[in-house]
C-alpha cells in the first residue's frame, strides 16, 4: 500500500515537472495557457492525493482551490484577455527552444541533487515532493526569464506558485495558514496583474513588457 501511495505521489509530482517542461516548450500563448491549466489540474490531483496519504482533509481545500481557480478560471480569463487585448498569438522567446530545454534539464538535475541528498531526515514522500517542487519553481522562473511577453511571464510566475503549493502540501502537516496565504496571494496577485494589464491597455498598445520598459527611468 505504502509504495503505491508513494508511486502515485511520485507520478503526480513528476507530472508537474513534465508539464513545466511542456510549458517551457510552448511558443504560442493559447497552448501555453492549456499547459498551465493541465499543470494546475495535476497539482490539484497531487494535493488531493497528499490529503489522502497524510490523512489531512484540510489539504482538500487547497486542492479544490487549485482545481477551480488555477485549472479553470484563470486560463479562461487569460484567453479572454488575449482576445480582448488582441495580443499577437506567438510569443517570441529569448533563446531557441533547444537551449532552454537543456537549461531546464540542468535545473532539474540541480534540484534533485540538492534535495535528495539534503532531506535525509524527513520521510520519503516529502523529499520526493520537495525535490520536484524545487524543480517546478526553478522551471517557472526559467519560463519567466525566457518569455518576452507579459502574459507569458505571468503564467511562468503562476507555475512557480504551483511548485510552492506542491512543496507546502508535501511538507507533512504544514499548518493551514500557509495554503490560505498562498491562494490568497495568488488571488491578489492575479487581481493586481489584471488591473495592470487593463491600465497598460489604456496606456500602451501592447502588453509586451519591452514596451513597458521603454521609459525605465532617467532615460530622457
Amino acid at each position, binding site marked *: 500500500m505504502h509504495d503505491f501511495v508513494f508511486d502515485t505521489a511520485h507520478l503526480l509530482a513528476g507530472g508537474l515537472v513534465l508539464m513545466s517542461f511542456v510549458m517551457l516548450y510552448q511558443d504560442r500563448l493559447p497552448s501555453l495557457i492549456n499547459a498551465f491549466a493541465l499543470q494546475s489540474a495535476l497539482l490539484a490531483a497531487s494535493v488531493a492525493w497528499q490529503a489522502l496519504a497524510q490523512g489531512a482533509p484540510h489539504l482538500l481545500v487547497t486542492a479544490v482551490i487549485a482545481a477551480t481557480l488555477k485549472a479553470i478560471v484563470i486560463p479562461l480569463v487569460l484567453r479572454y484577455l488575449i482576445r480582448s487585448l488582441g495580443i499577437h498569438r506567438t510569443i517570441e522567446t529569448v533563446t531557441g527552444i533547444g537551449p532552454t530545454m537543456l537549461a531546464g534539464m540542468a*535545473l532539474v538535475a*540541480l534540484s534533485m541533487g540538492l534535495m535528495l541528498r539534503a532531506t535525509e531526515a524527513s520521510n520519503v514522500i516529502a523529499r520526493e515532493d520537495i525535490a520536484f517542487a524545487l524543480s517546478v519553481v*526553478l522551471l517557472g522562473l526559467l519560463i519567466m*526569464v525566457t518569455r518576452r511577453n507579459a502574459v507569458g*511571464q505571468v503564467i511562468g510566475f503562476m507555475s512557480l506558485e504551483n511548485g510552492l503549493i506542491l512543496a507546502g502540501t508535501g511538507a507533512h502537516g504544514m499548518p493551514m495558514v500557509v495554503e490560505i496565504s498562498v491562494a490568497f496571494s495568488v488571488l491578489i496577485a492575479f487581481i493586481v496583474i489584471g488591473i495592470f494589464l487593463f491600465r497598460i491597455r489604456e496606456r500602451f498598445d501592447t502588453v509586451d*513588457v519591452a514596451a513597458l520598459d521603454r521609459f525605465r*527611468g532617467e*532615460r530622457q
Partner: protein
Amino acid sequence: MILAAVMLCVAGMFAVAIAAATLASRPFGRVFCYGMMAALALAALLAAIAGLHGGAVETLRLPVGLPWLGANFRLDALAAFFLVVVNLGAAASSVFALGYGRHETAPKRVLPFFPAFIAGMNLVVLADDAFMFLFAWELMSLMSWALVLTQDRDAANRRAGFIYIVMASFGTLALLLAFGMLAGPEGSYAFSAMRGHAPDLQTASVVLFLALLGAGSKAGIVPLHVWLPLAHPAAPSHVSALMSGVMTKVAVYAFVRIVFDLAGVSDWRLSAVIIALGGVTALLGVLYALMEHDLKRLLAYHTVENIGIIFVGLGLALAFRANGLHAAAALAATAALFHVFNHSLFKSLLFFGSGAVLGATGERDMERLGGLIHRMPKTAAYFLIGAAAISALPPLNGFASEWLTFQAVFLSPQFPQWGLRFLAPAVGAMLALAAALAAACFVKAFGITFLGRPRSREAQTAHETDRLSLAAMAGLAALCIVAGVVPGAFTAALAPVSKAIVFDRMPGQNPAALWLPLVPSLGNANSYSGLILFALLAAAMALVALALRIWANGASRRAPAWDCGLPDPSPATQYGAESFAQPIRRVFGTIAFRAREDVFTPPPGDTAAARIHVRIIDPAWEALFAPVGRGVNFVADRMNPLQFLTIRRYLMLVFLSLVFLLAVLALWL
C-alpha cells in the same frame, strides 16, 4: 583644573555658535560672536599657557559619545602647546574679524560655523580616544567646509569645497584605519590603551603610512596638497588664516600624537620617508607659490612649504630618537615645534594683510594691485614684517626656527646609517633652496602688491583698513619680532613638549637668562642670539643715521622716475607677478611643472598686441587626482546601463544568483 577650564571655554564656543545661528541677521550679531570668541579664545590661551608651564597631565572623562568608552580628554605638554597655537590664532583672527567682518556679504554663512570650527580644533587637540578624536577632527573639517562655501555663488568655490570635503573624509578614514591598526583586533580605542603596547615594525609602518595619508592630507604634504590652495583662499580671510595657520598645525599635532606618542615608531627607515617627503614638500610648495599670482593662493602654497620644513624637523627627530640620540632628537623636535608656532604667527598675519587688501580693493590678483604702500602704509608695514619673517630673515622668528632646523641637519653625521647620513645633507640643500626661493617669492608678493604703481583703479582708490584689523596684525607682527629676538624664551617653553615626545630637552636654556644665545647642542659651540643681532643692527642704523646727519647733504628733491631716461607712464610696463617670476620659472618650472611659454608676436606691419601665454602643469594633480576622477567616471559610465535593463533581465539577475547559490550549496554539501 586647567583642562576643565579649557573645556568650559570650548563649551562656551559651541554656545556662541548656537547663539550666532540666531543672531547672525542682527546688526550686533557680528560684534557679539567675534567678541565672545576673542574672549573665550584668550581665556583658553591663558589656560593652555598655564598648562604648558605647569606640565601636569590632566584627564577628563565625559559620559557622552560611545557609552562604554565615553569621551576622554587629556591635557599634556604636547596638547597644551598646540592649544596655545590654536587659541592664539583663534583670538587673533577673532579680533581681526571684529573689524574685517564688515566686509562679509553673508554673515549668516560665517558666524555660526566660525566658533564651532575653533571649538572643533580645540577638541581634536584635547581628545584622548580615537572616537572623540575623529569626531572632533571631522567636525573641524565639516565646519571649515561650510566656511569655504561662504561665497557659494562662485563655481570655483563650490569645486574647492567639494575637493576639500572629499579629501578631508579620505583623511579621516585613513586615520580611522590607523587607529584600527593601533587598537588591534580586540583593542580598545582609548589612547591610554594604545600607548600600552608598542606595535611591531610592520604595523608601525602601516600606521605611519596611514597617518601620512590622514594627517598629511590635512597638513598639505605633497602630493596630497591639491585641495589646500583651492580651499584656504576661498574662505573669508580671517578663516583662511585659521585654516592655513592653525588647522594645518592641528594636522601636525595629529601626526605627532600618532607617530611619536601612540605608535612610538622607532625605525630609521620610516623616519627617512618622512624626511624625504618633507624636503620635497618644502621645495615644491615654494615653487608652486612662485608660479602663483593670486595673493591668497600664494600664501596657501607657502603653507605647504612650511609644513614641509616642519616635517623635515619631525622626521629628523624621529630618526635621532630611533638611534637613541636623544639630545639631537630634542633639537630637531624643538626646531619643528618652534616652527609650528612661528608659522602660525606669520601665516595668520599675512592672511590678515591679504584680507585687508581684499577688503580695500576687492582684488586678490596681484596683477591688478600695486602701490598700496602709499594708501595702506600700516598694513604694508605689518605685511612686510610677516613677509620677512616667513622668508627666514634674521632677526625675525622664521629665521630662528629654520636656524634650529639647519642645526639639526648638521647633526646628521651622528647617524650610524649611511642612508640618513646622505639623505640629511641633500634635504638640507632642499631646505636652503626653499628658503632662498621663499625670500624671492615674498619679494614678489610684497613688491608687486604694495610697491610700484597701482595697476588698477581699485588699487588707486584703496583706503587703509580699520583699527581692529590693524591691531590684530600689529599684535602678531610684534610677536614675530619678539619670538625672533628672544627665541630662547620660546624654546625653553617647548622643553616639556620635547621631553614628552623625544625624552629629552634642548640644552642651554636656563629660564633665568633667556636673553642668552640659543645653544642648541652642547657638542659644538654653535649659538645664535637674536637679541645681540637686533642690538647690533639698531646700533648700526643709528650710527649710519648719525653719520648721514653729520656729513651728508640731507636735502631731497622729488622728480619723475629716471628709468634710464625713458620712463613709461603706463603702469603696465612695470614688472608684474608673472614677469617677476619668469627667470625662476625658466630655471625650475620647466623641470617641476613642465612650464611652457608660448610667445605670439604679430608679423611686421600688424599692429596687434604681442601675447605671451604660460602653461603650467601640476604634476600632483596630473599623476594622482585626475586619474582617480577619470577612473570613477569610467566605472560609473560602465555601470550606468544597469539602471536601464528590462524587467526580464532583472529577473534574470535574480534567477542567476539563485541558481549560483544553489549550485554552490550543491557542490559544497
